[in-house]
């Protein structure tokens, strides 16, 4: 009909599209081949620049072509004057912009932009920043852009406060943004550093002269700013308590004190003529310059970790040359120097004593509390209040529950033990996918509490039965323990770290689900091992016990291994020292 609009059929359209595609492909392949052959011949001319541009604008992820382009540009730099070079690179930047429009997450394009920006004779950083702003407004999680932006900020020296307000803006438009929160965490300590004096008076080891160790407080923020940050982040997690990014930032704000590096304990045993040293963190004692001085004489000793599996360990032991301290009527003075850290610890072994030690206790150091936070109690108390307020509104929110647990631990681990346990129970129910994680975390806290209780009681007995433990940790803190009771828990193994219990004499671990005894290894004083009702199934599983010279009493009742034929003779052969075997 006259004047009517006719529309191409889909078949027609398809056919046209197909032809179009074929044509494009032909051009693309031809250009690609031309580029390759030019590069082979070492031609760096404008035509090559054009060809690569044509190809890269349709496929910005062609790394070889970007390389070729850089070769060409570097060549041009040598033959053109500065103004021309400036022009070429400016053109390159606008070309890159068009590539980024095609694919804002192209590695090649961003990398090339970095390269160009660095070579540009007169760079325009403001333009680069605004490009980043545009990219981030389209996708606030484009990490390529974040990387590039960091480079631009660094090179052009954007003031920190300006960057902080940039994060304000991004967080304001969408606070589910790890990049922005994280960026904040790097800016705040620069802009609002903590005042030099430590937040809570902590006892310095008296013998060390105190040069303030920089890493302890380096990324802390002053309290005034912290309070503002708490408010900001609370707005976020009250608005959306299921958003993780805010909670993670909050965890960072609440802070974590880094433990000072030091020798936390020196133990010497006259019988074994052996010294054990515990460090504040796992180290490789063979390479840190550890020096043992006995009665003023440096000793040549062989340091070894408690288990061959560990190259790094918080506990190291060495045997003294035979006869050096064996005489009980002698008094000895030991000093262990950690030369690398300019620190040392003394230990005196008095006449008539079989053993001696020198240590800082966990209670003195507020070790487990400061692991979470070094903030003032009043601040933490008010944070706990806010979180409890949120919990009232959202009783099943896992992030809130977990944060409350951590705050309680920072405030008063023993006082809040009951609430903590109840919250853990809720967590396991509302987030069953992670129940094992919560059980392990709960085990850790229970062990910490038990260590604290033990130290307040000033005993060397560690008893933590029937607490649903699923894992063991802080075993370096148990170096001096002689009796340990782990019965009626959910432990599957006694891990290699267990070998740090150098003073252990009696180990009760009945009614667990232990399958592996890997860590019951070279325990010089272990005499009694109670493993009733566990899951030890073969004689080979008992192999590590053979390394404990004093083991006499072994209870294996209720383990599958007892069903093995000839188990008794096999055990007699494996563990000749055991005189009291219960099967």
């Amino acid at each position: 009909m006259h004047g009517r609009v006719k529309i191409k059929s889909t078949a027609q359209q398809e056919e046209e599209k197909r032809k179009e595609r074929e044509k494009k492909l032909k051009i693309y392949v031809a250009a690609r081949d031309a580029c390759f052959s030019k590069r082979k011949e070492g031609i760096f001319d404008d035509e090559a620049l054009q060809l690569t541009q044509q190809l890269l604008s349709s496929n910005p992820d062609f790394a070889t072509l970007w390389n070729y382009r850089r070769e060409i540009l570097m060549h041009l730099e040598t033959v053109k004057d500065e103004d021309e070079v400036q022009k070429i690179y400016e053109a390159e930047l606008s070309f890159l912009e068009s590539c980024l429009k095609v694919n804002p997450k192209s590695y090649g394009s961003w990398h090339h932009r970095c390269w160009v920006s660095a070579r540009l004779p007169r760079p325009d950083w403001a333009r680069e920043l605004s490009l980043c702003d545009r990219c981030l407004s389209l996708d606030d999680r484009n990490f390529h852009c974040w990387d590039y932006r960091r480079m631009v900020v660094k090179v052009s020296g954007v003031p920190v406060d300006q960057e902080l307000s940039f994060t304000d803006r991004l967080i304001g438009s969408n606070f589910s943004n790890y990049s922005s929160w994280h960026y904040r965490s790097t800016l705040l300590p620069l802009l609002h550093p903590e005042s030099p004096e430590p937040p809570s008076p902590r006892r310095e080891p008296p013998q060390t002269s105190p040069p303030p160790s920089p890493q302890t407080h380096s990324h802390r923020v002053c309290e005034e700013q912290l309070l503002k940050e708490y408010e900001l982040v609370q707005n976020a997690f009250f608005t959306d308590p299921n958003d993780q990014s805010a909670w993670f930032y909050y965890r960072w704000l609440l802070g974590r004190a880094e433990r000072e590096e030091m020798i936390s304990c020196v133990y010497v045993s006259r019988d074994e003529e052996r010294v054990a040293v515990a460090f504040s963190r796992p180290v490789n004692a063979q390479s840190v310059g550890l020096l043992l001085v006995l009665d003023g004489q440096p000793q040549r000793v062989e340091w070894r970790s408690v288990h061959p599996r560990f190259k790094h360990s918080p506990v190291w032991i060495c045997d003294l040359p035979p006869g050096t301290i064996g005489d009980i009527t002698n008094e000895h003075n030991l000093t262990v120097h950690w030369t690398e850290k300019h620190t040392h610890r003394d230990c005196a072994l008095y006449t008539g004593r079989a053993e001696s030690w020198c240590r800082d206790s966990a209670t003195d150091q507020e070790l487990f509390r400061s692991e979470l936070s070094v903030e003032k109690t009043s601040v933490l108390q008010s944070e706990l209040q806010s979180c409890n307020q949120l919990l009232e509104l959202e009783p099943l929110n896992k992030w809130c529950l977990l944060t409350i647990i951590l705050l309680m631990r920072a405030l008063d681990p023993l006082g809040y033990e009951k609430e903590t346990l109840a919250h853990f129970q809720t967590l396991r129910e509302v987030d069953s996918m992670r129940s094992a994680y919560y059980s392990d975390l709960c085990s850790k806290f229970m062990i910490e509490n038990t260590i604290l209780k033990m130290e307040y009681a000033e005993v060397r007995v560690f008893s933590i039965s029937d607490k649903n433990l699923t894992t063991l940790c802080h075993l370096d803190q148990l170096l001096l323990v002689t009796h340990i009771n782990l019965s009626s828990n959910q432990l599957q193994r006694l891990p290699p770290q267990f070998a740090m219990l150098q003073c252990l004499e009696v180990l009760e671990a009945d009614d667990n689900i232990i399958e592996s005894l890997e860590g019951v290894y070279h325990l010089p004083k272990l005499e009694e091992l109670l493993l009733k009702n566990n899951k030890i199934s073969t004689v080979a599983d008992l192999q590590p016990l053979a390394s404990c010279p004093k083991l006499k009493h072994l209870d294996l009742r209720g383990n599958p291994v007892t069903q093995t034929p000839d188990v008794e003779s096999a055990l007699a052969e494996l563990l000749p020292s055991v005189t009291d075997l219960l099967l």
Partner: protein
Amino acid sequence: MAAEDLPSEFDVVILGTGLAESVVAAAFSRVGQRVLHVDRRSYYAANWASFTFNGLLTWIQENQEGSHPEEAQDWSSLVEEGEELIRLSNSDSTSISNVQVFTYTSEEDEEEEEAPNTTEEETGGAEGDAVKEASETESADSKEEETEEKQEETAEGGGGGEEEQAPSTEGEEPEADQPAPSAAQSQSEPAKKKKISYTKLVKEGRRFNIDLVSKLMYSRGSLVDLLIKSNVSRYAEFKNVTRILTYRNGQVEQVPCSRADVFASRQLSVVEKRKLMRFLTSCVEETEEQRAYNGRPYLEFLRDQQLGDNLQHFLLHSIAMVTEDTPTEEGLASTRNFLRCLGRYGNTPFLFPVYGLGEIPQCFCRMCAVFGGIYCLRHSVTCLLVDKESNRCKAVIDSRGQRITCSHFVMEDSYVGVDRKKVDTPTRFLSRAVLITDSSVLPSDSDQQVSLVTVPPIAAGRPAVRMVELCSSSMTCMPGTYLVHLTCQSVGSAHEDLSPVVNSMFRTPESPDQETRPSVLWCLYFNMADSSGLEVQGHDLPSNVYVCSGPDAALGHDHAVKQAEFIFQKILPEEDFCPPAPNPEDIIYDGDNPSPTATEGEAEEGEGETKEEKEVQEQEEVQEEQSLHPEE
């Protein structure tokens, strides 16, 4: 003359270019129906139109004068055997009433310009505008066009004269008050910007696009869906409404409605934030608890949620936008609709078309024209010719006395004679006010905000008022000004309903103490009939005649879109309603006729394109405009 006649046969003749009629026109044209679309007015979009400042002055004058009595012509010679003639009403006097204008700014700038210079430019502007309007108009008769143009020119002059009188008719306040504030300004704050003069408004009049109805587009509403589905969206650009405000305890506050707003809000406590977010997330799904409140007021439901006064206010007035006695199920549905629309295009649920709402009907008209629809403005249908036996409209007689055969006839309700209208409920009215102000009701970092302000009833029995404040980047007002639309269901006249709100939220001669509030430079009050209660069929009219109602009171456009779809489906139940238009490159034109439209439509299309080009250029300067498609 004969060569300029319209074709004598169409599938559908549509009278009136309001939103529903324009959508119907596009829908029919798109599926290959021959469409004739006419409007007796000189502009598109009827009561949905947007005007330049000068155009609006003309409109005001026309509506203050009332309609000219029309002479009934005798068309009996065109009536065939077995046909009956139904006369259509040709007066629009019923839909607009109580027009009142107040100019609160000084007539001219005191220092800036010389008087003769200003007058000259003013005339120039008015002339240009008249030309523009004429160019948009399709008129076959060149002589008629000339006379029309002259008329408009005189009308413009008259309008200006009228304005000069307006303040004095209202009393002496404006003139008496004027010197005082300006003197105070020059003494205390010499740096403060000068008030924009009335002359300046007229001079810059073309920068205004003032809507007769004030609505917003719900970002998941039926209009947006239709614009996307039909590709009509490509003819327009949109801006996000950037914030929702409310007026409470004498203060304008921002309503936190999106997640980012709630996070950033300074007036909510963290506990309120949580309660609000929890309420908003939980109300999306229907629960037993909610059902228990069916039939009881939403306010009661909100009270029982223990949300506190702040949140209750926000939820009731600004998010659900209902009254205190609205039943819970309705309040919840309205809340859900608001939430559903959040986040599609931005932080609020609403979009606003750049250049004003009058663009939307025109976009549909353009789609209709692209597919062959023929357009005539200042052209009407005076009579229907009805086959007595079948009671169907066989043909119409246009205002030039041409008989045009059609299978279906669609018309705006104002053309239906009162005697033939079947009205179940008494006609309701909307009260409207349009203000030009000098600053925003809630200044913020950016002066380019588009805000919806909900104003709860200021006293019992008073209406709730909806206010939309547009900034200059929406291309509806000149830089340095804001265009404020107020709308409510009429209780009394527009002035009675709305001036108390205006006086409490703005600085006017009646409220000179409100020093911190924006000053009103100029304002207009009028009432518009809300005919949305009208049925499409069921009037004393032939069975193939369909009636479209004018603008309704609702914030969205659902009513008009639903009505258009209903009419289309009624006539062509088998056809798709506004299927996606093909890309321009997929359209094949006949070899002998490269124009996309029929010969008769050519002139008009040509004009349309120049206008479009101009708009494209202007639009390129506009920042942050949105196309509806990227998300799709």
